């Protein structure tokens, strides 16, 4: 359980990144242009949620370090270490979201390019977060799968949290009639993508080197894997398909989707770390 802080850090930070990225993407829709005031007000909730979540996630991540007070030293390895880049970009992303929240409170709206730049910072942080674990010493991870897994998590959880904000904020309720159906479909697409990436990752590992085979067996042999499949993919998939077909403004369904998707991604991430650590600490 000592890696739980990394599970929480990565999934929460990715949810925040996905939230800002999907919100920025929906700024291109006609509904966002027609109801620019509501879109701007929703932005406040998005930036505050993303900034607060990332800040909390970064604080939680300190607990996996032997010497948390010296964490700022992690910026000294920018020349070669993906971990240094992850820390830098995640910190910048958190700061950017809080600055955008402050700007949106003052002026009501934020220039779309600023939201886009903030989203790109977050995507960069997620990319380097995945690169950390793409280690040649761990054959199952020595490829693009860690990055793909982390980006898929960002899409799924970010879209799910935006669905929740549509249900619980006034500005979100104004935009919900136009967004609910296609945002449910986008989240469902993310769930399918996460399932495909996860399945391909374990299948490729199972057909790879002996260490990769052992890692795949450790991953898929866990009871947590079944929980992830049922509670983290199938259940939210079914609810999202229903929400896309009958786009009604149901807060309970949005809350259920966000909760089970976050829980499912955390279960999947725990399996990822657990199987990686299982192989690397010989």
């Amino acid at each position, binding site marked *: 359980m000592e890696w739980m802080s990394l599970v929480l850090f990565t999934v929460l930070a990715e949810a925040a990144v996905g939230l800002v990225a999907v919100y920025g993407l929906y700024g291109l829709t006609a509904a966002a242009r027609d109801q620019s005031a509501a879109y701007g007000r929703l932005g406040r909730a998005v930036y505050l949620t993303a900034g607060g979540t990332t800040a909390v996630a970064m604080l939680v991540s300190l607990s*996996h*370090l*032997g*010497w*948390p007070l*010296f*964490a700022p*030293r*992690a*910026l*000294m*390895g920018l*020349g*070669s*270490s*993906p*971990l*240094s880049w992850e*820390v830098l970009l995640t910190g910048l992303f958190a700061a950017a979201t809080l600055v955008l929240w402050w700007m949106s409170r003052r002026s009501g709206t934020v220039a779309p390019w600023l939201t886009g730049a903030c989203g790109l910072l977050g995507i960069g942080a997620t990319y380097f977060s995945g690169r*950390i*674990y793409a*280690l*040649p*010493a*761990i054959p199952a991870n020595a490829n693009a799968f860690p990055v793909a897994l982390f980006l898929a998590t960002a899409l799924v959880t970010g879209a799910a949290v935006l669905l929740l904000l549509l249900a619980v904020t006034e500005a979100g309720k104004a935009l919900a009639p136009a967004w609910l159906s296609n945002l449910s479909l986008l989240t469902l697409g993310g769930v399918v993508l996460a399932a495909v990436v996860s399945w391909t990752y374990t299948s490729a590992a199972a057909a790879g080197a002996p260490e990769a085979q052992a890692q795949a067996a450790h991953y898929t042999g866990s009871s947590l894997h079944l929980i992830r499949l049922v509670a983290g993919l199938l259940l939210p998939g079914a609810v999202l398909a229903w929400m896309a077909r009958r786009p009604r403004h149901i807060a309970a369904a949005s809350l259920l989707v966000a909760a089970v998707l976050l829980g499912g991604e955390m279960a999947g991430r725990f399996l990822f770390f657990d199987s*990686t*650590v299982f192989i*690397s*600490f*010989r």
Partner: protein
Amino acid sequence: MPKQLGFHHNMANCIGCKACQMACKNEYGLEAEVNWRRVYPFREDPGAPERNFMSVACNHCENPECVRVCPVGAYTKRADGIVEQNHDKCIGCRLCTMACPYGATRYSPSHRKASKCELCKTRLDAGLKPACVEACPARALTMIELDTFDNPAAVASVPGFPNSNITNPSIRFTPPVPGKQYRRDA
């Protein structure tokens, strides 16, 4: 080729006594759960008894993963090829322990930092042999300079040793001589 110090493990001579492992622990006062050098049983045949051993510590690789992944720049490669660690810089993130293909860097729960073999650099500077080399009763473990090391029987890798293409480790092995096993037929 620049100077590169490393180890040569003559597996044909090794008797698996772990004197090298204990000498290392004794020299540096390592905690119970930390071993910079480890001796693994090595079976040439799964059906045969364990009578061959592989003694492995940090391999002071040409392209060390610990140097690449460390976020605080705690690891550096010296001119003589030794990969050394500035223990004061370590923040205990454990990424080096995941990244090393040979499990050479070890995390100490009591010190909350990672550490590893530095090829007894202080002993070398004093003109002494590494503690593990000096302790080996079978003369199975020696320190070598890769640029001048010339042993036709030595190889860069043996079955069971992790993929050496990743980091190009500075260790050479003399593989064990297949033994004969005498059985009385039932």
